[in-house]
């Protein structure tokens, strides 16, 4: 338990540091100014890094929330007797969702959904669905047959067995899928800027258009830091969950 506490403290400190860095525009100005001497303007002028990060977090947050809200029940359903016939179909369709490039989804979505947040969220949702669904299925299938047998044998019905045995035992694998999905989304959400969804991609796109490397770096660096941070956060949730049940 102690090791856990230390981890959480370190993580809280990392979050605080991240916010401090993002908020401190003067610091960005100084460092980028020193590195990118070719440009007079080294920071994207229309929005501060903090605003861009906030927009980015919203994009990822909304799309990941939808991914989780649909992906986990979908994965659970196809492992139930009623949904088992659809298992192959669902894994195939979610696989296709991921092989389809998000940019292409955007291009197809814009005529139907217009510009901005909605088509981007749809693209991110489709792109992030596979790891969640696949890991939910894998997690539930990893529950030992004997344990499930015991669950039914002692008198649990299908719902109690799912809630009290299958989902808790599958949780680490499911959570790993969520982590992968969210991290992928943080990177993929950059393309939302192309159709005006905002986020850190805005600085990158502006940099490419204006041939300003500093803008590109601004967006990319912040996104990378965000991805590392969120990854660590979810990883800590995962390990503390595992350790809570006597694991190493």
């Amino acid at each position: 338990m102690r090791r856990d506490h230390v981890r959480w403290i370190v993580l809280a400190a990392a979050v605080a540091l991240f916010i401090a860095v993002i908020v401190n525009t003067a610091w960005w100005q100084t460092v980028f100014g020193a590195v990118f001497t070719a440009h007079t303007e080294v920071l994207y002028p229309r929005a501060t890094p903090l605003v861009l990060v906030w927009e980015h977090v919203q994009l990822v947050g909304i799309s990941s929330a939808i991914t989780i809200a649909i992906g986990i029940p979908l994965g659970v359903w196809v492992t139930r007797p009623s949904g088992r016939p659809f298992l192959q179909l669902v894994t195939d369709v979610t696989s296709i969702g991921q092989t389809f490039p998000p940019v292409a989804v955007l291009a197809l979505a814009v005529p139907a959904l217009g510009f901005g947040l909605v088509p981007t969220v749809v693209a991110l949702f489709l792109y992030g669905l596979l790891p969640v669904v696949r890991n939910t299925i894998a997690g539930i299938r990893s529950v030992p047959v004997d344990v499930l047998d015991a669950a039914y044998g002692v008198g649990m019905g299908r719902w109690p067995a799912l809630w009290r045995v299958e989902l808790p035992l599958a949780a680490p694998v499911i959570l790993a899928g969520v982590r992968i999905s969210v991290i992928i989304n943080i990177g993929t959400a950059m393309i939302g800027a192309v159709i005006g969804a905002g986020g850190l991609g805005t600085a990158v796109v502006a940099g490419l258009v204006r041939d300003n490397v500093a803008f590109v770096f601004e967006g990319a660096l912040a996104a990378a830091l965000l991805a590392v941070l969120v990854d660590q956060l979810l990883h800590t949730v995962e390990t503390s969950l595992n350790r809570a049940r006597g694991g190493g």
Partner: protein
Amino acid sequence: MMIRLEQVTKRYGDKVAVDSLSLQIEAGEVCVLIGPSGCGKTTTLRMINRLTEPTSGHIYVDGRDTATVRPEELRLSMGYAIQSVGLFPHLTVAQNIAVVPQLKHWPKARIAARTEELLRLVGLDPAAYSAKYPRQLSGGEAQRIGVARALAADPPILLMDEPFGAVDPLTRERLQRQFARIQQSLRKTVILVTHDLDEAIRLASRLAIMEAGRLVQYDRPEAVLASPANRFVRSFVGADRALKRLARIGIKEFIKKAPSVPVDTPVAEALRATGGYRWLWVVDRQGRLLGWVDRDLLAIAGSVREVMDEGEPEEIALSEAATLREALSRMLGQGIKYIPVVDSEERLIGELSLRDVEAATTEGES
């Protein structure tokens, strides 16, 4: 609770796993289903709590056809213990035991009290074990928790599938003895599946021997061992069935009075006490066994203590709760014809002779 199987058949495609099996298990009996692997014993057990549905036939529990009862409800009235892997790995020992009481919506305080009671019953300290996770338990401990979980809501029926399977022989024997003791006070209707004949003989009040989905003999273990129904049973129980039968017979009625003297008895008096016997057991003031003396040595000795062969009671004597098989094994192993018998306080009760044990062996052999 009485259980009755009527013409129960289970088919998997063309394969017949259980072939029109009829079996009646009286309340309070320990019915052991035994047979080679694939004989249908586990399938039979699983049909009783409907984890497997019979293809045809009926199963009645206390006169009620189980097919008319919701499976979950049916299972709540039957404890179910399988090998240790059946414990829920994400729940603590206490939570594992509490599963069924929780499903029955017992109040928290009652569940906590029951959990403690059960841990004590299976010989584990609640303070040390309640908060442990299954992966922190030894095989033997895990199986005891499995039995405790099955007993949690005090079901009248207990279904056990190789409950003592995954442990070393020494632990297994200890668990079996413990289970026999618990069963003696709880008097559940138990159906136990095993492939271990010694386990079956030790625990069963009825032995159901199965072969290829059929019941080939159903009787008290003594009767099965004394007169196997056919060649299959004869070869299954083995050529040493006479010896196995001894494991069913306690030594109590074969104990004979034996001369003994307190260790501080004068030699002359001790010699008189031998009364024609070659050996004399020596006890202390409280009657606890200390050792023995040889009459011939005693004749030339100054005191009993001087020529006494000493030994720990558990090494030189049998407990009165022992079986004839243990008695025989001890006597043959130590090359002796007489062995003293002590009670639980290690006080001498009498002795057992090899000749009497032999006589008991041949009795049922006619």
